[in-house]
């Protein structure tokens, strides 16, 4: 079976359109986040309390919400897991401002007391998460640093293995994927949590994979297609690897889709992030990475005559 038989699409011709589309999506994402007052952070980064309750009978979220009426701040009450499980997740904002307030878990007590007093049903606390302000700030810093350093590490590696303009292309593509993914996370109302950041970091490693495959092919084709223009070589390479690019994204997507559907509440945001990241990664490999590499190579050629193509002893055909 073959998805693409001898594909010959002119991807490079569409590079400016692709860049425009990506900029549009990212700008919309930024604008959306701006209007919401920043990227919504989960309790891992913002601090706060999560309580997971298991009721013995079905209880409506509204009644739980009503029982917690008196507690300060914006609360989230939602069904957790399958509807038949009668499990409710309650999320409370950070109320402990100083770490010296030794009672980090006091909101858990207040909330469970309020729920017991409301007599809406017997329940059991099956899980709690309380993150204080110190850890939140610490994790924020670590998350940002880890993301930046892994991108930096990958850049250095690619710059070492390929020409610098290609490394730049790969890095722009990686940033592109992270920003697009963040935009979609915002559109679909996901909070930034530890798991989501883990997914974002995985995407930095994954999205650059496709790009490396294309660049490897470009490097190989440079040897056999000496007379052709950079654009042509890149376009041929993208087409030659298109089947692989789409299929590998496809198999990973199948696995992550299963994670999204069956992996449960905890992993759902992770799986969503991966799904968006994989799609964006494939798109950016085909349209963005190569385009940036070409644009940057061209600028260097203009700045430095004779052009690299000339080192093959032939003038560039354009």
């Amino acid at each position, binding site marked *: *079976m*073959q998805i693409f038989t001898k594909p010959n699409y002119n991807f490079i011709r569409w590079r400016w359109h692709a860049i425009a589309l990506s900029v549009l999506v990212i700008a919309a994402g930024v604008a959306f986040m701006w209007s919401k007052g920043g990227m919504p952070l989960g309790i891992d980064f913002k601090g706060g309390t999560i309580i997971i309750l*298991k009721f013995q009978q079905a209880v409506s979220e509204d009644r739980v919400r009503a029982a917690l009426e008196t507690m300060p701040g914006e609360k989230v009450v939602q069904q957790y*897991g399958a509807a038949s499980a009668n499990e409710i997740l309650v999320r409370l904002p950070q109320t402990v401002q100083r*770490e*010296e*307030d*030794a009672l*980090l*878990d006091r909101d858990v007590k207040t909330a469970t007391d309020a729920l017991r007093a409301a007599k809406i049903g017997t329940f059991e606390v*099956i*899980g*709690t998460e*309380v*993150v*204080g302000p*110190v*850890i939140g700030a*610490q994790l924020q810093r*670590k*998350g940002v*640093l*880890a993301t930046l*350093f*892994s991108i930096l*590490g*990958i850049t250095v590696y690619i710059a070492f293995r390929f020409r610098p303009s290609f490394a730049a292309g790969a890095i722009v593509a990686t940033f592109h994927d992270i920003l697009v993914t963040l935009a979609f996370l915002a559109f679909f109302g996901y909070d930034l949590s*530890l*798991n989501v950041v*883990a997914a974002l*970091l*995985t995407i930095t*490693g*994954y999205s*650059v*994979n496709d790009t*490396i*495959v294309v660049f*490897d092919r470009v490097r*190989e084709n440079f040897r056999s297609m000496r007379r052709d223009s950079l654009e042509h070589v890149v376009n041929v390479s993208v087409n030659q690897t298109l*089947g*692989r690019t789409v*299929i*590998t994204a496809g*198999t*990973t997507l*199948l*696995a*992550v*889709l*299963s*994670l999204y*559907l*069956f*992996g*449960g509440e*905890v*992993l759902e945001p*992770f799986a969503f992030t*991966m799904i968006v990241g994989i799609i964006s990664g494939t798109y950016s490999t085909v349209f963005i990475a190569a385009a940036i590499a070409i644009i940057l190579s061209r600028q260097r050629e203009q700045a430095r005559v004779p052009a690299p193509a000339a080192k093959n002893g032939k003038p560039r055909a354009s």
Partner: protein
Amino acid sequence: MDKNLRWRAIAVLAVVAISIWGFYPPDKKVRLGLDLQGGVHLVLRVQTDDALRLDTETTMEQLQEAVEAKGLTGLTVAGVDPTRFKVDGIPEGQDGAFREAAVDVETRFNRESGTGGSYGFVMKPNLIVQLREDAVEQALQTIERRVNELGVAEPIVARTGAAGDQIMVQLPGVKDPQRAKDIIRSTALLELKLVEDGPAGTREQLLQSRNGVLPGNMEVVPGVSDTGAPGDRAETVYYMVRKVAAVTGRDLRNAKPTLDETNRPAVSFSLNTDGARKFGKATGENIGRRLAIILDGRVQSAPVIEGRIFDEGRISGVFSQQEVQDLSLILRSGALPASLTYLEERTVGPSLGAESIRSGVTAALGGLVLVVVFMLLYYRLSGVNAIVSMVINLVVLLAAMSYFDATMTLPGIAGFILTIGMGVDSNVLIFERIKEELAGQKGVKQAIAAGFDRVFLTILDTHVASLIAAAFLFQFGTGPIRGFATTLSIGLLSNVFTAVFVSRTMFELVLSRRRASALSI
């Protein structure tokens, strides 16, 4: 079959056999994280300022004594912050005498140049570092002892945080998180002090006989009125006690639950030699007076000393059986050098963990089925090759995890699922290349050889890039996320082996048995 190929086939089988032996039976060999088996994850900060403050206060008392010994009067010594204090009102012309008295102090504190008969003292920086380090280390050891006494299987107690003053505690399978939290955090500072006056209903009543002035060597400590009858409403009373303790928890040798004369739960303790000597002296000289048993700044009971006691004592109060047990545990494990605050706590009930295992396994199987079906449909017989090498990849991954004693977490299962999806990536890369080579009119054997050879560097590049990301992920993450980074990294490494070595060996094995003119790919 050529010799080389036979050896490769044997190597593959050996790796598979060793791997299966390595993780079988999986429920014993693969360690589950807290999020899967349930338990408590805590991060505490040691308030090392407490240790500094204590040292500064001790030094202030020392200085006061030294100054008095020199016959200087009218000075005030006051604390400024945990590492600073200042001395005011040094009489004119007595500066030299004061500085002589402060010589000892200056081995630990820097004296700041003062004006008008006052000096500031600041703790030396290396002493600050030393004291903080000691406090954290001591707290860590104390917590370890307490956790071990709780009877938790495979607890983890480790230092974390950039400043090194945080302690992470993981207690798998703990049933009563609140009790564990209380036990870990209680300072458990036991002090036995002679009572000078009291009990009295209020602080003011206590000071009445002394015209409202508390003598310098005394302090007022609150406590519970010891009515004796259980169920009585306990009222707060105040005792005036000597500041210097006769014996502290440092001198304890052991503590265990017992009953007092009215059959109420109590804690009996015994003292070490040094403590027994001090205790014997204090009790022998003060028969007929009361001795306050103070725990964390509260008088638990204040029995009358009836005779000279050396090394045995009892703490009685209004305790439940459980409280008595916990208190003996805490006393045995020693006092914390500084107070602790909780920064983060996550508890996972066993039912939630089981739910996570269920959904994780379902998702993994679902992903496996989807990928297998796709590979079979798209690559037909060659798809079988990819599937076998993927399964071997998973087997090696499991074995490596149990060998490194790595923890399987819920995100770790996600890493597993990603390994399924991304593992076939390399196979796809190779197969697509083989297809291209076949299209280029090459023979099957040559096409396979070219396919594997040409993409090897590409596979190396992609795996290195992913490993770089996974390494930073490991650095960044705590608990569950580290589990993810671990599975992902090991999965990537074993994938290079299975996709390149195992898969190629299988192709060549099949080809060595029959001359194929077409490849099912």
